[in-house]
């Protein structure tokens, strides 16, 4: 135990926690925006995988990280258009269409990967971007300011999301559409247009989350995301549909995972305890929520398709 409490190890663990939290955060923010407007998307995992593969493959073939990110986000937009078609136009049951997208994303990315790449070929992942001055602060610098650019983007999106939702007209309409779409409609807000935007944003962020994962690791593999998309959805509920709450959830999950990881490495946890403690992030998420339980309700129109004809 004493090994863990050396400063350098704790610092490394916290930095690791932030890195692990990033894909959760991006995907969860995207899902949160969609849900605030009344749309549930259970297909986040599939879109993350698609974003991850597109980013990896683009980087492999072109060597450009920027292009990789852009194409991944584009793929997310395409998936968003597909989801909008199914959900808004055809009024499909929101829970299940998502599962179909998950299966499709899982299988299709694996298929493309097997056919176009074959054996995993590592690529040069994202470099660490040291923020000048801040990165040099002892310890704190290593924890917060020595990450790749997508990590910074993810955390910067938290105040941006808050601002857009709470302080802009678009955000106002978004919230109205999620709570009382009929009222919003009578006031001239196009419910389905707002939802189209939030679905596109949500899917883009999910794809970006996948890209962040693949580019950080510099590799792709079948089922790379390994369930992160579903955890990201759960974290929306943990965060009570507020950006800060979602960020707390992502950090909780990431830091606990990193801590358990480090304890296993040092030997604090070993043998049979190893598999038990691996459930710690999931368990703690529930426990924390129980103790912090604030009764913020879901957006009232969540999962209910809006039909003008009533």
């Amino acid at each position, binding site marked *: 135990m004493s090994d863990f409490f050396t400063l350098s190890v704790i610092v490394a663990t916290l930095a690791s926690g932030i890195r692990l939290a990033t894909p959760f955060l991006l995907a969860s923010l995207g899902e949160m925006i969609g849900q605030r407007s009344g749309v549930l998307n*259970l297909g986040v995992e*599939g879109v993350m995988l698609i974003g991850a593969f597109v980013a990896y493959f683009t980087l492999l073939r072109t060597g450009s990280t920027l292009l990789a990110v852009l194409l991944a986000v584009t793929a997310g937009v395409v998936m968003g258009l597909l989801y909008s*078609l*199914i959900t808004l136009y*055809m*009024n*499909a*049951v929101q*829970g*299940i*269409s998502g*599962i*179909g*997208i*998950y*299966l*499709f*994303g*899982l*299988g*299709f990315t*694996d*298929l493309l990967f*097997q*056919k176009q790449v074959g054996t995993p070929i590592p690529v040069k992942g994202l470099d660490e971007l040291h923020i000048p001055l801040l990165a040099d602060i002892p310890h704190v610098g290593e924890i917060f300011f020595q990450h790749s650019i997508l990590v910074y983007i993810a955390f910067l999106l938290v105040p941006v999301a808050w601002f857009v939702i709470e302080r802009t007209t678009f955000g106002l309409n978004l919230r109205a559409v999620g709570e009382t779409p009929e009222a919003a409609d009578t006031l001239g807000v196009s419910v389905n247009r707002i939802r189209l935007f939030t679905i596109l944003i949500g899917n883009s962020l999910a794809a970006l989350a996948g890209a962040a994962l693949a580019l950080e690791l510099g590799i792709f593999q*079948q089922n790379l995301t390994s*369930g992160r998309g*579903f*955890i990201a*959805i*759960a*974290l929306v*509920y*943990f965060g009570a549909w507020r950006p800060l709450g979602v960020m707390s959830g992502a950090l909780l999950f990431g830091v606990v995972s990193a801590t358990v990881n480090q304890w296993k490495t040092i030997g604090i946890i070993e043998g*049979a305890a190893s*598999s*038990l403690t*691996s*459930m710690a992030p*999931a*368990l703690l*998420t*529930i426990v924390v*929520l*129980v103790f912090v*339980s*604030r*009764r913020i309700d*879901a957006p009232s129109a969540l999962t209910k*398709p809006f039909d003008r004809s009533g």
Partner: protein
Amino acid sequence: MPTALDEPVAPKLLRVRLAPRLVGLAVPVAAVVAALAVGAIMLLALGANPIEGYVALADGAFGSGNALADTALKGMPLLLVGVGICIAFRTGVINLGGEGQIIAGAICSTSLSLAIPDTPRILLVPLLLVAGALGGAFWGAIPGALKTYYGVSEILSTIMMNIIAAQFLSFLLLDWLAEPREIRIQQTERLTLNGDLPLLPGGTRLHIGVLIAVAIAVAAFVLLFRSALGVRLRAVGHNPNASRYAGMPVQRSVVEALAISGACAGIAGAVLVFGSESHRLIGEGGAIGFTQNAGFNGIVAALFGGLHPLATIPAAFLFGGLLTGGIKLQRELQVPAALIVALNGVVVVFVVGSLKLRTRLAAWADRVTGVRT
């Protein structure tokens, strides 16, 4: 004055009974065809022959007695989970925890069989099913209680409970439940023969698990639509606030719904272990090795069946056919197995996307054939 008896029977029959039903059937069928067309494009891109592939798919799903048996066996856990989902969804609760509840049921029934292996079969098999139901009910009741008493969303808790269950299973299969072997792997020993689910006559691998699943579907139908409990649950699902004003125990209903839903999945867990060819609880490579992802596929089956327990029977059977036939398609065409996963996803998306279309078209058909809706 024209009376009812003066009208020709046949046209009215067509208009009132068959037109909306035919439309109701045509839409999902068209959706599946469209999905298979997309699949055909993917097959062509891989250099495979779609016709050959789909013939193999149909053959693998329905082409022989053994194929039908395999399809029924594949659909059985989907039916059990799906029936539980019907109950939960109709109570207004989204149960994504099927995987964890299956695992819980499997662990309970396996532990029981390891504890009392010499019990005569006729007693042990029902006990194992009950143990599975209790395990699943427990695992479902926890998210129910968390929602009721702490306001924790069941979407979050069920997703997390899935992870916890899978890790717990991994833990149990590393040591406590694992078969002692030179090189230990994560599975139990071959469980007592007294626990084997009896095979049905006919020489196939079909076992009574299928009959149990159908029986539970019927029981769920009775519960939902013919019992006081069902009325209460559906009322809560329809309008929880009104139900609360009416004095119904809304909170208890949520817990009950999740417990019942979990119990169904737990029975699926028991059946998956004791009806399998291995007659072991296998967690090697992950819990999904024995759950077959039924926790999620069951949700799909339930929604294909319109959240009606009886309609879930053919829905689960057909979805099982798709999954079973896919294995043969992969084998015959030697395409990557990933294609089958993607194809399943496409089918789900198309069929789900078309469901509301079905009600719209049925209404249109009613208007066109002159029947007042």
